[in-house]
């Protein structure tokens, strides 16, 4: 490790205190998501991935910037556009891709699919398919963390990150969750990944008074901020102190994170509701390109000067190879065995006569828990 690689800049922003090495890792994390999603789209078009599939491309700074602002054992839960969070949280790309291929080596043994990414060792509690349904769960994860601390006396101060899209703003579940979180003082941060569309319906057509989203949360007594979600450093600068405060004070938070998805809502979206020009306009603010620029620019130019053109190409090559390896792994992995897997993981404590069809069983151990078995 060279001296340059560990150097941090002297400055006022929290991100100024991060090492070059850390920022290079974040760039790598974001590029991993982008490359992964590119291959996911290919595999989907080749019909190797089925079902609904929601692509995260464009939103990479959000998952990476927020997750890197908290501890690795803080609980994280999200909706169905979840590949980015899974990878940012540290899920092996092989397990993520194999899940979408419906293979036994997937994170949910091929029983969950694209919308249900779970990773217990990395404290990722899903991947949830029903819009807004994860928001009461986020409150529950925060409740458990606080209960562990105050009743069992065994924990530490945690903060839960609960992601939702702007479409979930309109769900009753989210309003109940906010009320409970505020009432009970639950350390959960609701992060609205506001990409401007609830499927194909623009936000001004689906959320009343949408210019004043923070007022909604404040109406519940929840501290709320808006953060520009295109620059990972800016997210860190603004989100990290916010998350630290929610953790310290053990209370909820609400973040309106402005972002944009480059792809359609799902793989089957013809995107008639927005113009190509609009998409191109947002691509000019691309979070990966801007971080690359920052890392390549010299310190005199306000950058870090810690990444060369060649090193960036090398990073992209290595990530491409890592993702291709994940695709190969997914393709070559066996499907779940019908005899042992169809009727396993339904009950932890199976017993006779739970079903008129046949008895439930225990199947193969989950690949992510294999080290623990």
């Amino acid at each position, binding site marked *: 490790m060279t001296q340059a690689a560990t150097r941090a800049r002297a400055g006022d922003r929290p991100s100024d205190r991060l090492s070059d090495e850390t920022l290079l890792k974040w760039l790598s994390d974001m590029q991993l998501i982008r490359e992964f999603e590119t291959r996911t789209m290919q595999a989907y078009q080749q019909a190797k991935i089925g079902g609904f599939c929601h692509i995260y491309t464009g939103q990479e700074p959000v998952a990476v910037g927020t997750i890197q602002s908290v501890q690795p054992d803080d*609980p994280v*839960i999200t909706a169905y556009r979840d590949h980015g969070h899974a990878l940012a949280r540290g899920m092996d790309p092989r397990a993520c891709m194999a899940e979408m291929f419906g293979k036994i080596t*997937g*994170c*949910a*043994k*091929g*029983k*969950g699919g694209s919308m*249900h990414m*779970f*990773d*217990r060792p990395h*404290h990722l*509690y*899903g*991947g*949830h398919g*029903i819009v807004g*349904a994860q*928001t*009461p*769960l*986020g*409150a*529950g*994860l925060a*409740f*458990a*963390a606080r*209960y*562990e601390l*105050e*009743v*069992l006396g*065994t*924990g530490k101060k945690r903060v839960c990150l609960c992601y939702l899209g702007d479409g979930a703003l309109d769900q009753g*579940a989210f309003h*109940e*969750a906010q*009320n*409970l979180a505020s*009432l009970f003082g639950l350390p959960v941060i609701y992060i609205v990944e506001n990409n401007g569309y609830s499927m194909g319906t623009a936000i001004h057509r689906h959320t009343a008074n949408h210019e004043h989203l923070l007022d909604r949360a404040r109406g519940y007594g929840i501290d709320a901020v808006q953060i520009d979600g295109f620059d990972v450093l800016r997210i860190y600068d603004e989100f990290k102190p916010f998350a630290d405060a929610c953790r310290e004070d053990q209370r909820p938070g609400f973040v309106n994170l402005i972002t944009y998805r480059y792809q359609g809502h799902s793989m089957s979206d013809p995107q008639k509701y927005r113009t190509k020009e609009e998409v191109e306009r947002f691509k000019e603010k691309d979070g990966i390109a801007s971080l690359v620029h920052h890392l390549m620019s010299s310190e005199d130019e306000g950058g870090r000067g810690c990444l060369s053109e060649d090193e960036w190409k090398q990073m992209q090559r290595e990530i491409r190879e890592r993702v291709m390896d994940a695709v190969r792994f997914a393709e070559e992995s066996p499907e779940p065995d019908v005899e042992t897997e169809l009727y396993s*993981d*339904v*009950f*932890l*404590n199976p*017993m*006779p*006569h*739970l*079903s*008129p069809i046949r008895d439930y069983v225990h*199947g193969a*151990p*989950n690949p*992510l*828990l294999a080290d*623990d078995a």
Partner: protein
Amino acid sequence: MIQYAVDLPEIDFSYAPPREGERVIQFREALREAMSEEMRRDERIFLMGEEVAEYNGAYKVSQGMLDEFGPKRIIDTPISENGFAGLGIAAAMAGLRPIVEFMSWSFSLVAADQILNNAPKMLYMSGGQWGCPIVFRGNDGAGGQLGSTHSWCVEGLYSNVPGMKMVIPSNPYDAKGLLKTAIRDPDPVFFLESERMLGDRAHVPPEEYYIPFGQARLAREGDACTLVSFGRPVNFCLEAGEALSGQGIEVDVLDMRTIRPLDIDAIVRSVQKTNRIVVVDQCWPFASVASEVMAQICEHAFDWLDAPPVRVNTDDVPTPYAKNLEAAYLPNPEKIIRAVTHLVG
């Protein structure tokens, strides 16, 4: 917080204290005793619901529990079933053992997404990574002139969903033993009580005991016909059995106690003796637990039947308010007697 190993209960089910005795308490007290005993044993258990704490329970089931366990473990919620059901589910995933009380299962319908989509499917969707050790409990069935929206019997609707266990006790003794087992079980359990039975009094042993799931109780013995029921209508079957005995007709009354698992073996054994079956179920008839029992008995004991199976359900209309209409709508001993005499005669 994270416990990877499956926390399977080590329970001695062989210990079953006598059902007869002098310690007569109410059904609601038996429920309270089960919860309190388990909460003393395991700090991870908490009770959450509307009016469970400061009000001492809308139906006084949790009376005194706030005093003993404090507000961090006996938790009043707003009227927000979808919210607090989901909160409980995630708390269970994270290693706690919640008991979530619905004042009425009728109100659980607004939490259907959480209790049907998340609780029973989490283990499967996560490929075995996260189970959901939670008990949902509350009043089920017509409470008495509450009208259509407050009189739900959810067992027909909910037992269709794989991934949860369903318990419906008919008496205080079973209520205590079954609820203790439910709290210890690592899977989601739907525990259905009845407002109309909470004041029922019977002997309940003061000591700890557990009743295994999937074992029906033969509550009355006879050879003319098998009566199969669960929850409150079991008591109607026993009344009918008494009356029928006066006419020289002796019936088996099977109290199923759990719907999932369903002790079909006990039903088959009885039918092999009686060759006739009447299923009594306080749900609507279409796609009900009664339908399921009849389907299974046809699959397993068709050749033992001397007559087609018969069901006594509620009538197939929304629950009426008027006293006479509601009485006509619900299963009752007279309807059961009619069904049996028709079948036997």
